């Protein structure tokens, strides 16, 4: 198990390093710097700016400097917001996005698992069809269509929620529901499929023969095996929820990291873009690692393969 975790960890670190390098050079080789947008900056001021941010150094030097400060956990100053560091901006925005992500994941799991379990146990009844219908809507209607429609229906027309912002606890409801719904659909499908496959197996019949109650059979015996596909899907799902927050935060005007990332990319704020990409990549990889470990813990078959 330890060997398994170590090898995955090394693989993630390698990938992270590749991301940092690729993003760094991609940003430097594109036309237009962070200061070209400001009109008519006199050449001497431009030179001072570049000297201040170390942009006049040779590229390999800049790269090494950046890696060096990264190792100290320092993402450097922001190019766009003078006198703010990237660390400050990230620390400011990340909690908002994390909260949105956690709520959405909660919605997705709660809705997806319960729909999936009901659908599997009441196969080919109206409950199954309802779960399939909800799943299909979640799969086919994109968040950027459902989102504005929900704002229209539940904020503008009925006034139950505010249309934008992130101040009251009630402001969390619509964005988390919209983002979570998109991922509830695949989770319910995977749960249904996984459970159906497991419910036919001998050990379930044994459990029933022993006289275990139906609830115990489902929740104690079947779910452990049946949920493996769901656990495997959680890695891509969390990555999707993180990137999905770009759109959700734009629709609901939430001051989170997703919106900041899109804005910083438009502004060519190199250090902020790099910082955000690295943070996202690290988050996604950490979550993938966690998912791998949980998966291995749940299923000895996976553990033995590596």
């Amino acid at each position, binding site marked *: 198990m330890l060997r398994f975790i170590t090898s995955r960890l090394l693989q993630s670190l390698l990938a992270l390093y590749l991301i940092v390098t690729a993003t760094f050079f*991609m940003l430097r080789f594109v036309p237009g710097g962070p200061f070209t947008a400001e009109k008519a900056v006199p050449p001497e001021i431009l030179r001072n700016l570049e000297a201040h941010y170390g942009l006049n150094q040779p590229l390999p030097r800049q790269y090494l400097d950046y890696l060096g400060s990264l190792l100290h956990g320092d993402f450097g100053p922001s190019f766009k917001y003078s006198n703010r560091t990237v660390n400050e901006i990230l620390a400011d925005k990340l909690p908002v996005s994390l909260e949105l992500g956690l709520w959405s994941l909660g919605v997705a799991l709660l809705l997806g698992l319960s729909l999936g379990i009901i659908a599997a146990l009441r196969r080919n009844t109206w409950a199954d069809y309802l779960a399939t219908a909800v799943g299909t809507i979640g799969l086919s209607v994109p968040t950027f269509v459902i989102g504005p429609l929900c704002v229209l229906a539940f904020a503008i027309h009925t006034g139950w929620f505010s249309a934008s912002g992130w101040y009251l606890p009630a402001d969390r409801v619509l964005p988390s529901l919209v983002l979570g719904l998109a991922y509830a659909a695949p989770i319910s499908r995977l749960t249904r499929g996984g459970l159906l496959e497991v419910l036919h197996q001998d050990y379930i019949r044994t459990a029933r023969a022993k006289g275990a109650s139906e609830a115990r059979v489902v929740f104690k015996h079947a779910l452990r095996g049946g949920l493996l596909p769901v656990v495997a899907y959680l890695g891509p799902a969390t990555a999707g929820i993180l990137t999905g927050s770009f759109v959700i935060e734009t629709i609901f005007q939430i001051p989170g990291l997703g919106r900041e990332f899109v804005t910083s990319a438009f502004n060519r704020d190199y250090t902020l873009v790099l910082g955000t990409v690295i943070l996202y990549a690290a988050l*996604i990889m950490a979550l993938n690692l966690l998912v791998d470990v949980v998966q291995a813990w749940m299923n000895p078959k996976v553990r033995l393969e590596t």
Partner: protein
Amino acid sequence: MSTSAPSTPHASGLSPGGEAAERGSSLGHDAWLRLRQNKLAVFGACTLLVVALACSLGPLLSPYGYEETRLELGASAPGLRHWLGTDVLGRDLLVRMLYGGRISLAVGLSATVVALTIGVVYGAVAGFFGGKLDAALMRAVDILYSLPFTIFVILLMVFFGRNIILLFVAIGAVEWLTMARIVRGQVMSIKQMEFVEAAHALGFGRRRILFRHILPNVLGPIIVYTTLTIPSVMLLEAFLSFLGLGVQPPMSSWGVLIKDGAEKMEEFPWLLLFPGTVFSLTLFSLNFLGDGLRDALDVRSSKD
């Protein structure tokens, strides 16, 4: 593996040589019969046909141009003259949706072709040659899987101009990973069958065996996953366009129309409703058709 396997035309259809053609066609016929039983898949296929026909022919029949603005009209509600209403510049929404659909469908198809080509070749090579090459190639896919690719597509689009060709390539380059995994798995199981051994014994080259003997037998899963890749590609395009990073004005796509509609939805809800509905309906149809094909061609859903 699944517990109930009704009929397995897959295994029986894998006969080598001259018989394959005749068997293959009956396999296709079986699949067609099964597909026709599936109402949702038929509904999906019909909807797609209507949407595709409307998008390709519709603009020719419309009296309105797609850029034709009538500012004095402004955003007018759906009516007899403009069936789906007009946008704030007085442009006919129906015509804009049909043109936008052309772009959305074109992006969907071409990016899928890019993904399909990379994925099939990559997966087939990994599965066929096996050993260290396979291990290295699939490890690379594992690593790529864990990368936040949407973020890279956004970076590409921001920094290298919002160019539609780049959009095809960037999206295609993201979506091939699953296809590669599936093709690899299939190739690995098929290459152990006797007819492949027979082909080796006959002295055929490896390239010929891979492309002429093995790949045709992987066609089922390839078709199914191609059908399922198109909606995810279209979704990614619309996602980018919604953020203002995809298709750029004066060109338009369903994603662009949804973005414009969402900005004006308070006063003119139809600008969001119609493009959103047509886009969702198309994704819905593609997903159902893909699922139907999977059942009809008896492709197992397991990815490993």
